[in-house]
């Protein structure tokens, strides 16, 4: 009898987890458990943050009540940039390792990021009206956000223009990556362009420094938006997975379970 004992190398649990996540049915089941919680946390944090920001925080010394739109504008701006970075990172991983789920995650992020960018621009515009008397000003932040919106629209447009879904995703991921490399350059050149042409930089948060009581609602809203992103992203990804794998057995089982 063969008595040699072969020792299997212990696999790193993190690596195994990542490997499992690459499998569509597993990803679908695993993320499904988290999504309701993410929505719940998002809802609670948003209500709390808005309450603190719109009701409890004191009015701004310079801007009065209108500054409160900052609680929407600033977190949205942060998310618009964070999502683009995440999209670029996921795009890089998807391109190099050709992992389908990461492709889907990257593509699903684009519309969410674009939406945040539009919210940023709209909130900024509404903030601008009482502050400078006009709905639009070419300040550094708004102009950067506008260019960012064009970058997002480019990624979404390219993804929707190519017929074959995986080819489309790869092309759009490459574009996202190229945009990400350019983004700091665009950001700095716009910022600098603004000072060049207007002397003192006009900025929406210029003037008073931020008091602690104003900071808390901001941070809470910032965290809330992250949960929104996670919940929305995972929902979209799961739907895409069902669509793409519609002919596979695991999807048929899932649909059977639902009905």
């Amino acid at each position: 009898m063969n008595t040699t004992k072969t020792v299997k190398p212990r696999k790193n649990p993190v690596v195994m987890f990542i490997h499992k996540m690459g499998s569509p049915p597993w990803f679908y089941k695993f993320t499904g458990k988290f999504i309701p919680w993410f929505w719940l946390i998002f809802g609670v944090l948003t209500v709390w943050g808005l309450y603190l920001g719109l009701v409890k925080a004191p009015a701004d010394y310079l801007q009065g009540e209108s500054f409160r739109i900052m609680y929407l504008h600033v977190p949205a701006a942060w998310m618009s940039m964070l999502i683009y970075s995440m999209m670029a990172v996921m795009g890089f991983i998807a391109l190099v390792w050709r992992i389908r789920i990461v492709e889907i995650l990257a593509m699903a992020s684009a519309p969410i990021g674009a939406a945040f960018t539009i919210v940023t621009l709209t909130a900024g515009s509404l903030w601008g009206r009482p502050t400078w008397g006009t709905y639009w000003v070419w300040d550094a932040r708004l102009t950067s956000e506008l260019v960012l919106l064009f970058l997002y629209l480019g990624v979404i447009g390219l993804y929707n223009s190519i017929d074959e879904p995986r080819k489309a995703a790869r092309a759009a991921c490459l574009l996202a990556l190229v945009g990400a490399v350019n983004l700091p350059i665009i950001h700095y050149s716009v910022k600098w362009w603004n000072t060049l042409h207007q002397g003192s930089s006009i900025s929406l948060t210029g003037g008073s420094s931020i008091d602690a009581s104003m900071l808390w609602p901001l941070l809470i809203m910032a965290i809330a938006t992250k949960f929104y992103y996670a919940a929305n992203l995972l929902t979209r990804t799961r739907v895409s997975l069902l669509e793409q794998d519609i002919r596979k057995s695991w999807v048929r089982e899932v649909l059977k379970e639902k009905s």
Partner: protein
Amino acid sequence: MLSVSDIVFERYFQPVFQPVSFELKGSELLLVTGANGCGKTTLIRVLAGILHPSAGKIGDLTGGMAYVGHYLGIKDDLSVLENLRFIRDFLGTSNRSCSELIRHVGLTRVAEQQARTLSAGQRKRCALARLLVSEAKLWLLDEPYSNLDQEGVELVDRMLSDHLGAGGACVLATHGAHRPDWAGTIDYHLVSGAAT
């Protein structure tokens, strides 16, 4: 020379053809046949390295590869001679003179004419001349007989037997009735992947 195991290529999340495996040695011809739309062109393009397989392994190839497909890869605005000269300079091979190659494929009369003025069969011959310029060991041919008259078909068969006789290998995809007459032919019937 070329070994391939279980390659699959997916489009729209469906495999285009059933998994393909084969081993090809020197002086062998792999004749890929199958119905229209079963993925012959896709398979050839995967072997050529233009497409990345969704699964499976393709062994490393030494000795270079030449490909003639549906899109001939010749410039309409250049003459036959200019096209071949460019290919020769670009690939860095310099065996026979381009004029001799043009004579070999029967295009001497139109050598100085722009490729756009040639007939489909003449353009095909110009594209086939690429195989001779490249000095490659492996030929990948997708419908090499299309658009050719009887003389052209015989030319392809002659080129094939010269190449295979000298130790080269070839993967040839065709849906037509004509088969090259070569002893070392391996038949491979490609099945479309949409079966399941």
